[in-house]
């Protein structure tokens, strides 16, 4: 079975034109599914609901399956209402919060159980499938063994999509760390995230790259990649692999994955597109920050 590629939701806050250009390019990339919508911060409005829905229509016309992703932290009534508006018009939903599951279930919309729903066992996945989940993304910290165990345990029929390449969204807060960095309050943040299209790296006092600030989200500084594990992934009965957008080279990375899956020649230097470094520890059941040699 050939795995399809998906383009995960944009985690960063880019200027409007950059975002539109990115998706115009993505319409021609070898991805089958594109996730749209704001998943990090309710204050990010370079694209309004109507813009996301227009993009959804364009990408659908280009032959992509479009899924609208929910915020991972739904706090306010406006967060919830915004989600309902998009869900009613946008078709498929990625639920990253139990409240989003409720919205999808009540509207009878098939949904993707996102990576932040904490699905660590087969029964949890079965329960979500009963609520209408048609696809799921395992927790980012679940490695090869954990994933195989969940798949062995589940009894439902759902597609499995693995987060295969991108900086890891590790934590969500009500507090904005980008605003904090600039000594600004969250509600008057001056939208400083716009200046950091790949977030703001956090280094230890010994200069080690550690984490990455992206507004209210904390990411890994390095890029998690299963590039070296493709042959293992192919033996696991998976359906889709997710590439998470970054400010540069996303198209090249998608093309490389597509070529590798089609068993064409792999690029000589895959790592060049992520100079911040690659990690894969989670896949091996270790600390996510580790990089292990694949032994396939």
């Amino acid at each position: 079975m050939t795995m399809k590629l998906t383009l995960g939701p944009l985690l960063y806050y880019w200027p409007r034109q950059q975002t539109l250009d990115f998706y115009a390019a993505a319409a021609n990339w070898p991805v089958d599914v594109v996730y749209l919508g704001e998943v990090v911060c309710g204050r990010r409005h370079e694209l309004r609901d109507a813009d996301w829905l227009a993009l959804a229509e364009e990408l659908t016309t280009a032959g992509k399956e479009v899924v609208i992703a929910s915020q991972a932290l739904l706090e306010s009534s406006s967060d919830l209402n915004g989600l309902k508006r998009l869900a009613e018009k946008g078709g498929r939903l990625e639920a990253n919060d139990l409240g989003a599951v409720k919205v999808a279930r009540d509207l009878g919309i098939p949904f993707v159980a996102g990576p932040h729903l904490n699905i660590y066992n087969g029964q949890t996945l079965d329960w979500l499938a009963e609520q209408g989940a048609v696809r799921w993304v395992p927790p980012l910290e679940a490695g090869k063994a954990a994933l195989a165990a969940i798949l062995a345990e589940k009894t439902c029929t759902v597609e499995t999509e693995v987060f295969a390449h991108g900086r890891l969204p590790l934590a969500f807060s009500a507090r904005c760390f980008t605003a904090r960095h600039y000594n600004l309050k969250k509600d008057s943040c001056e939208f400083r995230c716009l200046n950091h299209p790949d977030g703001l790296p956090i280094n230890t006092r010994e200069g080690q790259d550690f984490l990455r600030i992206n507004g209210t989200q904390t990411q890994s500084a390095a890029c998690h990649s299963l590039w070296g594990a493709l042959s293992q992934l192919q033996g696991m009965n998976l359906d889709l692999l997710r590439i998470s957008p970054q400010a540069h080279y996303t198209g090249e990375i998608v093309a490389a994955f597509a070529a590798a899956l089609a068993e064409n020649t792999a690029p000589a230097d895959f790592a060049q597109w992520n100079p911040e470094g690659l990690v894969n520890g989670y896949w091996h059941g270790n600390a996510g920050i580790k990089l292990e040699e694949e032994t396939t």
Partner: protein
Amino acid sequence: MTRLPQLVCPAGSLPALKAAVDNGADTVYVGFKNATNARNFAGLNFTDAQLAEGIRYAQSKKREVLIAINTYAQAGRVQEWHASIDRAASLGADAVILADLGLLAYAHKTHPDLKLHLSVQGSATNFEAINLAHEAFGIRRAVLPRVLTLPQVEYVINNTPVEIETFGFGSLCVMAEGRCILSSYATGQSPNTHGVCSPAAFVRWDNQGKTMNARLNGILIDRFEDGEPAGYPTLCKGRFAVLGETYYALEEPVSLNVLAILPELIRIGVAAIKVEGRQRSPAYVAEVTRTLRAALDAAGNADFQVKPQWSTALDKVSEGHQQTLGAYSRPWK
């Protein structure tokens, strides 16, 4: 008279449970000695015999005992979590505190009379999430993550039939609970998978001259100069460099303290106020329980004011000797 919220206090041992009960807790929450709860630390938590005695002690004084089984059941080992739920039911716990949707489904089906609370680790920050768990599993109470403002807490309360429990005192998670895997990124173990955060087994203190380095799995979390009080390297509370500036990039070492807003919490209808700290000593539990009991009993009065001796008592046991109202007031908002 205004109905006071229950005071829910932590216990990591039988002496701590008795200290909580003796000092005025309405409810004590505890965990088993295994990976099924989010304070899975060596030397902590209860055997079945200890728990049976603790439940007997609390219930004989008309207090309640809740058992936290609030990590996520790991595939292939789900039986450990099911067995813990079964034990909690047979021991006569007043409720179990769960986060995992599959476990909620199991408990609801297998033990229909067992009261279920949705753990803070379940990350339910909005009424839709709580109402779904109510419809599906009949949860009686939900513990809110420490990320909501007071008006947001009130909005949740006004839109759900489920009792709402909020945190009142203790170490502060700045991230939404259940939505943070920073710990496993650094060490391979997280609250969701192992019931631990920044686990002690990965902590190393190394001395470089007069400087003390606090490391987590080799990663430098903080560095303390001579004479500077050294804190535990919880990784979100370390000092890091961002664009060349070194500071507490995510959060200072600080404790949550809601004494100043107790009347507000009562007014909006919070059903229970929780104290963090099952990993803390019986002396801590006694001190904090006694202080919050006194404050809560006074908070229903119109002329309520925080007494200096309460603040002093809590300051002594606060992380970094600092306290905050956290998200409830959002000075950073």
